[in-house]
């Protein structure tokens, strides 16, 4: 086992063991321990990119493998079910892996500062293990397994620490996403049974699958991931879950959990069933644009802060899905950067919404107001996040949305041009509702008084997100540097 293989396992094992340790050790040290584990988990994540230059320890698989992982670990687990413990990381998955590690650390630190609930910290770490496993899995059945790992912990986070209607929201979340999961199971098993293997490296490019199988598999997988992403009209679980979830729950949910859907669509859906993807692309594109428009229009009518941000996710994920639907290199790269940007910005927005709700004890836009006078710093950061989210050039949100539209125009033809125009209009509406949000919350007469001070822990949780939003906006190559090769492989 090479050092990098150890790092791959460590990225999953550390949070899992950390969660177990949290459950067994005294509650007193939970805050420190949880944060420490989340921080230590970042070590393997930071080390992994250095594996890029290293030659793979195993000989490259025969044929033209379209996934060339930087580091890879392949151990047989349950041969009877075509299940290998096959982990690997490459340019497509790495940015999301890093985002997961970062957001979990920030959430753990924030929870520790808020009062260190031991169970909540343990659940956050379990979630991290599950999400990282999903992004690192290079085996279809293993991917499905990790996809399911996050279901119940997220349910528990919402049902245990959420708002007034948390029970109903959590139940809706878990049943809806399990529905997506079982479709994923059907799709995954259809593929593995037909191809006789679950190895994503071997399967990518549609090897060994007939046209009809690819159509069937993509239909199942696309609906499964559309529930998770979520794609309009399967998004109805999202606003309730986001609104009721505690701050850290919303951050993880919006920041990385939704990305499991879009990442899965790129890696598994488009990767394993390219013919199916081509067949379904127009439908996917139309639904994506519908999501952009519907999300924006619904946001214009929202009166509650967290709910508005939740619905804005529907619109943003619409752009990501539009990028994927174009099946062009530009589009998929736009989707990848859109994923990361949305994770950073919406994570920040939910942190801020949580901070405002904690201080003002209300999230109603009508009751808030004049934040720039009562709490100028908070208002400033909220303004930054909102402007980043509406896609101002120079900040992270811009690249994903602009290039999704450009990719759709580049695809040509009446349908895609129309979709591009509509998506651009949706982008303008995004600007409209975020400016409305700012007008209501930061400007206008002072509403509910909001204490101005921002605690050190809050600065600590927010500043990395602010800095990265700026950094990714200025240097998108941070995310896209290593994606061109795998993306070219996907769309060939």
């Amino acid at each position, binding site marked *: 086992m090479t050092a990098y293989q150890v790092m791959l396992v460590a990225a999953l094992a550390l949070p899992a063991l950390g969660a177990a340790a949290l459950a067994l050790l005294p509650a007193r040290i939970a805050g420190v321990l949880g944060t420490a584990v989340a921080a230590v988990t970042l070590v393997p994540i930071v080390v992994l990119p250095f594996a890029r230059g290293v030659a793979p320890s195993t000989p490259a698989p025969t044929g033209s493998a379209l996934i060339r992982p930087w580091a890879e670990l392949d151990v047989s687990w349950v041969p009877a079910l075509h299940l290998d413990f096959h982990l690997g990381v490459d340019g497509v998955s790495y940015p999301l892996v890093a985002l997961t590690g970062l957001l979990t650390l920030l959430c753990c630190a924030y929870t520790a500062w808020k009062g260190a609930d031991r169970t909540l910290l343990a659940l956050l770490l379990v979630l991290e293990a599950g999400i990282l496993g999903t992004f690192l899995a290079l085996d279809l059945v293993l991917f499905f397994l990790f996809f399911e790992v996050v279901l119940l912990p997220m349910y528990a986070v919402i049902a245990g620490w959420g708002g007034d209607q948390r029970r109903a929201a959590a139940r809706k979340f878990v049943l809806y996403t399990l529905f997506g999961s*079982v479709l994923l199971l059907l799709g995954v098993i259809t593929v593995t049974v037909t191809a006789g293997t679950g190895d994503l490296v071997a399967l990518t490019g549609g090897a060994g699958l007939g046209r009809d199988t690819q159509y069937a598999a993509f239909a199942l997988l696309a609906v499964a991931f559309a529930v998770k992403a979520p794609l309009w009209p399967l998004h109805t679980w999202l606003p309730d879950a986001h609104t009721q979830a505690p701050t850290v729950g919303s951050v993880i949910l919006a920041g990385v959990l939704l990305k499991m859907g879009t990442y899965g669509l790129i890696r598994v859906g488009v990767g394993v069933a390219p013919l199916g993807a081509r067949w379904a692309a127009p439908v996917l594109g139309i639904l994506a644009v519908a999501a952009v428009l519907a999300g924006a229009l619904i946001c214009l009518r929202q009166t509650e802060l967290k709910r508005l941000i939740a619905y804005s996710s529907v619109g943003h994920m619409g752009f990501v899905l539009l990028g994927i639907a174009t099946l062009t290199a530009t589009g998929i790269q736009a989707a990848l950067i859109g994923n990361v940007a949305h994770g950073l910005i919406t994570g920040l927005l939910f942190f801020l919404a949580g901070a405002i709700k904690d201080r003002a004890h209300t999230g109603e836009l009508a009751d808030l107001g004049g934040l720039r006078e009562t709490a100028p710093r908070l208002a400033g950061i909220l303004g930054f996040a909102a402007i980043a989210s509406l896609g101002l050039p120079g900040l992270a949100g811009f690249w994903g949305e602009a290039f999704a539209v450009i990719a759709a125009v580049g695809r040509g033809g009446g349908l895609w041009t129309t979709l591009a125009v509509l998506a651009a209009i949706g982008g303008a509406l995004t600007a409209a509702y975020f400016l409305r949000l700012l007008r209501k919350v930061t400007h206008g007469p002072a509403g509910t008084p909001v204490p101005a001070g921002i605690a050190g822990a809050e600065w600590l949780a927010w500043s990395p997100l602010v800095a990265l939003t700026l950094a990714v906006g200025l240097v998108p190559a941070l995310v896209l540097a290593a994606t061109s090769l795998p993306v070219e492989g996907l769309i060939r």
Partner: protein
Amino acid sequence: MTIDQVTLLPLYAASGTALLVLLADLLIARRAVTFGALALGGLATAVCAIVVGTRPPTFCAAGECSWVPSPVAVVTAVLFAGLTVGVLLLSVPALREGAAPPGEFCFLLAASMTGGLVIGYSGDLISLIVGLETLTLPLYVLVGLRRFAPRERVSTAGASASITFFLISVVSTAIALLGAALNYAATGALHLDRLVDGSGPAAAVAQVGVALLVIGFAFKVAAVPLHAWAPPTYEGAPLPVAAYLSTASKLGGVLALAAIVAHLDAGAITAALAVLTMTVGNLVALRQTRMVRLLAWSSIAQAGYVLAALAIGGQGVEAAIVYAVFFMILEFIAFAAVVALRPVASDGGDLLAYRGAGRRSPWLGAALVLAFAGLAGLPPGLAGLFAKVTIVDALIDDGWGWLAGVVALNAVIGLAYYVRVTANLYATPPRPGIQVVDPGLLEAATHPRLPVARPVAAALIVAAAAAVVLGFAPQLLFDALS
């Protein structure tokens, strides 16, 4: 006919256990000795089954054998023995209190184990049905075997449950026997490996025979629409016996059905039973408010998944047995945790009685979470996840995609009630209607935390360890079955 005595060792061990328990109770009449005899006998049976392993069949005449050691037989023999010892451990506190005569209880349990063992090894329909009856017969008594202390409120629930179970079981056996007879009349086959679908003028008779056999055995696994006996019987029986009914007794039915569908074409009727069983089981479970009834309906639904795999025929038997083994272990954990949470010798009680139980007893709560998550097919119950994947894999592999879809949708319905029960374990106490200073204290007074008897804890720990180990290494089970 030469008989290889070594091959029969597991049977000797099991029936020897029953005799030993009977003699120990008669001659020594000490509770601990009786318990020890059954526990050691059960372990010896499991060890014998493993050591003897798969040998050439015996009791053969003209190439037709009646005692066929197969990997499935070995695995299920170990499971029967394990469940029997487990149910004994769960019963120990109640037996110590004198809720039932220990000697009789242990003897009947051992006899039932012997019957279960025979089903797995049997090579012809007669042995199979005799095994099934030997498994079930002691249970009629066990369900109603309840003594009441002088001051205790006497309940006839056990007796009426026993009668229900007895009547339904006798009818189902009669149906199965009629089916076997019709099939024999049409094809002349009694040995399992000689069973063929009927042909020529007698084909219709043979088909009716097969259908009656499947229906007769479907009673035993409580498949809808032949399920009505299960919830009242489980509810009326003592908790450990209900655990035995929903695990070992059900496993007997699954093995009998597997023997039929592996050799005869019963795909259509089994698939219909499967769809009905899982859908009705899950939908009715949604509305249950009592713990044992909920477990009963959920175990009906789970049997539907096993039937779905059996609908494939011979190819699906391994998947069905894998699912059944995982399900038995998880269901046993659920019952064991319920026994541990309830007062000694009481019934399963209302779901409200479990409110906040996971907060008061974190380990028991964790065990129940493991069991319910597993039954719903989700991590952390990895065993249940692999069970679900195995079924779907087998169904899709054999071209039963639509049935796999029904199984998948049912998993979603199932989660709705598993999540409800599990969330209830961690619910905070509701605000009482009267003014109280500390609602927590009131909750602690009305829902006291009970001490867990050592035997119950031991059974729970072993079962949970088995579930975790098989969850991480399911290949062990696949290897043992092939």
